[in-house]
């Protein structure tokens, strides 16, 4: 950050540069959020018509139903499982690329290899599990062929397991990239110094690598948690309709034109998400982390 000779001129220039960004975010982020907030207080005629007013009926309905608790528990379960698996895989993949691959060009190549699927369709990557996990899929065929099982396993596809597999498949990249970035900034001399001082491999991991990757882990966590909590199509397709999450219930509500209930549920979810994200942000200055 360069000091500016004239602060008010710098302010005007700054705002001019970001004004196109604001011109998009105000109508397509701020306004829609406010509309959903407003709709959550409106009454409905049950046919998609909204009556402007102020009632807390939708919130009472959402908070009183035992379904809400179940949905949140399911969502938290999916989020926690996905978070743990993406963190473990992402951390060690990044660690391997940064500390074990000695040829820098090869490391970048392997890193790109991990990122390419991110730029392809999520839905396609999700349905690509069907030929593998299905009742007559490859995994069942292989297990039957080896004589491990007699009946094809039905829990592989259209189950909670399939949902978690699809999430981990899609989201591990969101852990790899930020953790890779923070690990790449660790000075290798630091680790050599630690070895010279007699640190074991475990000590190096515990005292240097993990603490110094914390900001990457925090960033990855924000991505993974917000995407899983905001998702509905993976849950809907991969569970075969057997499981639901907060947003997939929201989707059903929209389908039957229950806008105020859906909006109230969305507002609650957003509050939960904001709480989680700001809790994570307290441990890391994300802006300084990204701009540096």
């Amino acid at each position, binding site marked *: 950050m360069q000091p500016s000779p004239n602060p008010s001129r710098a302010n005007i220039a700054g705002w001019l540069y970001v004004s*196109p960004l604001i011109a998009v975010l105000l109508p397509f982020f701020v306004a829609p959020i406010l509309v959903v907030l407003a709709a959550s207080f409106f009454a409905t005629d049950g046919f998609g018509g909204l009556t402007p007013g102020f009632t807390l009926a939708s919130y009472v309905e959402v908070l009183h139903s035992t379904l809400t608790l179940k949905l949140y528990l399911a969502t938290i379960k999916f989020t926690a499982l996905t978070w743990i698996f993406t963190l473990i895989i992402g951390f060690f993949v990044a660690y391997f690329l940064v500390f074990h691959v000695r040829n820098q060009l090869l490391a970048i190549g392997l890193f790109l290899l991990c990122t390419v699927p991110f730029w392809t369709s999520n839905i396609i990557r999700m349905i690509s599990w069907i030929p593998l996990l299905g009742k007559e899929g490859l995994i069942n065929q292989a297990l039957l062929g080896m004589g491990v099982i007699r009946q094809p396993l039905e829990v592989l596809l259209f189950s909670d397991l399939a949902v978690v597999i699809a999430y981990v498949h899609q989201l591990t990249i969101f852990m790899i990239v930020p953790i890779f970035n923070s690990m790449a900034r660790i000075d290798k001399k630091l680790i050599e110094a630690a070895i010279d001082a007699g640190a074991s491999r475990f000590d190096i991991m515990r005292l240097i690598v993990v603490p110094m990757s914390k900001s990457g882990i925090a960033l990855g966590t924000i991505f993974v948690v917000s995407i899983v909590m905001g998702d509905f199509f993976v849950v809907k397709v991969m569970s075969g309709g057997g499981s639901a999450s907060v947003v997939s219930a929201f989707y059903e509500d929209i389908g039957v034109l229950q806008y105020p209930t859906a909006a109230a549920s969305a507002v609650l979810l957003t509050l939960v998400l904001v709480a989680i994200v700001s809790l994570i942000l307290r441990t890391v200055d994300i802006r300084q982390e990204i701009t540096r």
Partner: protein
Amino acid sequence: MSAVLVDMPETVAPATTKAIAPSKGGRPWTFYVLAMLFALYVLALYGPMFCIYILSFQDIRGGLVFPMKGQSMHWFVDLFTQVRTGDVKGSFDRSIKLAVIVTIITVVVSFLAGLGFRKRFRGDTAVFYMMIGSLVAPGLVLGLGTGLLFQALGLNASWYTSALGAQLSWTLPFGVLVMFAVMSRFDHVWEEAAYDLGASRWQSIRLVMIPVLAPGLVAVALFGFTLSYDEFARSLQTAGSLNTLPLEIWSMTLNVTSPSLYALGTVTTIVSFIVIGASLGSIVLIQKKRGSRTKG
């Protein structure tokens, strides 16, 4: 970061000759374990995708699982000619057009925002967090809000108005974050030299910054195009009566149970791969050109 160093206990122990430094000496056993994990990860990443590409080339008897039943292009022809699979051609067309528009806007707006965020200005943190909010907000909720907003204003939702805006609320934060990374590697000396030589602000942007930052701008374009082309949750309530390609795929997953679905997956992935390859290729080309110029 320096706080971490202070926290480290001052252990004094005799230096060891064992190769525990991953960057030196013989390979420690962890190398082989982690290499295995990495290989498995890449296999799990690409394996399933390649299964559906292979299965999409079955003939008319084909099903959704292995073994392959014959080889033909039947399901690709089926995809673009059959009515029951929906308007694939039209949605394909719309998605490409929309992605091009989104890419152009994303590159320009992210570049300008990247310039703006280089210096602190009053209220910059608020703008920054607004952007982060737009990134992490559940797409379906934003989409519904945008849809209701258009309804309330009496506007018709369509792919080139409401869906365009909804997608930008997703691609722009990514674009600006990539710009941050790009800008942090930009040496201010170039720009100052341009000013010293009498360049105007616009000249320094056009003749110095854009050429120097070109690879980063290509990366922003790659994010803009692919994120828009595959965007689903935010488009669902905002695309109006005409579908984009991911919406078409979504409706197919719910009611088409033939390899047509896989054929569509193959086609859309080929488009993605072309875009990724062209972007990465042009970045490499730009870098190579620079290398040869400095050498010569």
